[in-house]
């Protein structure tokens, strides 16, 4: 179960004008590994600003924050400290529980996502060629309409 904050996301917005969002994932215990919890998150990159140097945009995929819930009977020493995060106890419930950040060691190094971007040097060439192409195509159609159209 996942909770998005905010829950309305503008999917079309480019990266530089998009709002950050927080995703709360409830992890399920892994049946094959006692004491393990698992989740898989698919990622789709937004459009980034065109680059001047031809390099792809780099997005660092940091490790997620692992939160433990001080609810039910799973009390640990950290639960006596003031709460760090208040979030729903489980996906759909309205009750808020106290959650504490657990220290953990990431299994892999920080991952870097390369997002392809357009080249800013191409701007003038692309504008000129695009507009010429549209003028050419519209002239073709205009000529055909003037030749075969009924103007009486």
């Amino acid at each position, binding site marked *: 179960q996942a909770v998005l904050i905010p829950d309305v996301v503008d999917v*079309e917005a480019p990266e530089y004008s998009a709002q950050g969002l927080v995703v709360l994932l409830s992890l399920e215990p892994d049946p094959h590994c006692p004491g393990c919890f698992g989740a898989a998150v698919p990622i789709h990159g937004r459009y980034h600003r065109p680059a001047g140097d031809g390099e792809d945009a780099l997005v660092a995929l940091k490790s997620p924050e692992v939160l433990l819930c001080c609810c039910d009977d799973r009390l640990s020493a950290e639960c006596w400290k003031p709460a760090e995060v208040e979030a729903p106890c489980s996906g759909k419930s309205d009750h808020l529980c106290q959650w504490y950040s657990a220290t953990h060691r990431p299994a892999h190094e920080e991952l870097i996502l390369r997002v392809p971007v357009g*080249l800013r040097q191409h701007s003038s060439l*692309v504008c000129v060629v695009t507009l010429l192409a549209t003028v050419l195509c519209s002239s073709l159609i205009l000529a*055909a309409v003037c030749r075969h159209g*009924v103007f009486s």
Partner: protein
Amino acid sequence: SPRQACGCCAAAWLLNPLPMAVSSRGNAEALVALLVLAALHLAEAGSVGKAAVCYGLAVHVKIYPLTYALPIALHLQSKRRSGERAAGTGRDKTAKFTLMGYLRQLFVKVLNREVLFFGAVAGSVLAALTVVFYHLYGWEFLERAYLYHLTRRDIRHNFSPYFYMLYLTAESKWSFALGLAAFLPQLLLLVVVSVAFYRDLAFCCFLHTAIFVSFNKVCTSQYFVWYLCLLPIVIPRIKMSWRRSVLLLFVWFVGQGLWLAPAYLLEFKGYNTFILIWLAGLLFLFINSFILVQIISHYQQETQVDKKLKQQ
């Protein structure tokens, strides 16, 4: 036979995989197609009021039928004019033909009773629906349905030839001017096509939507359904050999395929194929224009069936 021909042309829509795929993706394009076809059929049959209701409903569901206002207006006034011409207006025949004079004559005659009635009914239906839905959903409805399209800046890859240009200039000071420049060929072609082909309403609207979609700043597969629904009506009036039409269809699909390949590599594999996508978009525009020129060149107003029926 006419019945067989009708069946074949209807099959071009009903058994066409493209509308099937688009409709099952969750877009109710078939609904808009139904409303547009009903409005055009009723307008040609002469039931102006019912046509206006269907048209108002169609514009409420999707905004693009708004472009049909000009062909429908010209078509309605032409029907009225053909009745008046029998009375005899000798002065018009002897007047020298000038472009401005012709256009002035056309657009002045547009403001006749039937056209005003159509406009009033369609406008009221649209206004009533807007008010009802505004009461149901509030400001969010107005924003999502209408205002969004005014400020929309979709820079993600799509079939449109302008996509890369808009993406690269999204934050520059030229962005507004370029957006406007992209709008001008569309506007000019739509007006000229309306004036040239308004007598055949279905063909005119088919060309209208095909041009609108091909030259639009955003173009996705779903938009093709908007003019494919009019193709079965238009097919009998296009005198083209089977081989040529199959070739044109094949070229159209090849154009899409050449775009989809680099788009897949960009979106799912992360390769930087922006230039290839842009060039494929330009090629697809050229292919669409070529197909439209072929359709216009092979168009004849009276079909063989019409001629046979007249001879009987």
